[in-house]
């Protein structure tokens, strides 16, 4: 299990290859990569991501531990950036390796649902008109109820 919280960019393809290599014999590897989207109509200058150092790592480790208890997983990787990101940059990545595809898929979705609403990150969108905190979506909170 590897959990990385960093400001620096990362290389999703290289991370995925290294992860799959380490989980050799797994059969199924699922990845999710989140990328900064521009706003409808454009104009996003930056996405600023604030986090709670200490609690961030701790809460992700707890979420990943829950995933490993719940599904048969060979390995889990979570990378999440903070700081100021531009449209097109990677925000975060989750990877799961498992003997069977169902476990790899479900665990990756579970991790994403929890990262969205339970890990202490906050996003702020910066445009020429100013900066606004991204509001939590009811949909993201509701997504947790399926687990």
């Amino acid at each position, binding site marked *: 299990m590897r959990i990385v919280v960093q400001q620096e960019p990362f290389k999703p393809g290289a991370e995925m290859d290294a992860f799959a290599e380490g989980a050799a014999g797994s059969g199924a590897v699922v990845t999710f990569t989140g990328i900064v989207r521009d706003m409808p109509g454009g104009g996003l200058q930056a996405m600023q991501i604030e986090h*709670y150092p200490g609690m961030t790592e701790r809460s992700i480790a707890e979420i990943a531990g829950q995933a490993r208890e719940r599904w048969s997983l060979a390995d889990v990787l979570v990378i999440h950036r903070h700081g100021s990101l531009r449209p097109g940059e990677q925000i*975060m990545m989750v990877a799961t390796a498992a003997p069977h595809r169902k476990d790899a898929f479900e665990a990756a979705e579970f991790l994403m649902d929890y990262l*969205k609403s339970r890990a202490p990150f906050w996003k*702020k969108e910066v445009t020429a008109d100013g900066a606004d905190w*991204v509001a939590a979506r009811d949909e993201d909170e509701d997504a947790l109820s399926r687990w």
Partner: protein
Amino acid sequence: MDVLYFAWVRERIGLPRETVETNAATVADLVDELRAREPRYAAAFAETDALRVALDQELSDFDAPLSGVREVAFFPPMTGG
């Protein structure tokens, strides 16, 4: 006790963390004390429904007791991922 603020809570209060001397029994009591301090605190804590609280870096709730707690953090709902 260390009190931390994140995102717009931090912006409204104007600082990321401070040390607070308090005998508040619960998180709600602490919030009442903070609200009474200055308008910027009252503004930050206007709607606690819109806030989350963590005690010693674990998500908790406003009814939770503060005894033994060293670090309290207030912030809006998370928007990671």
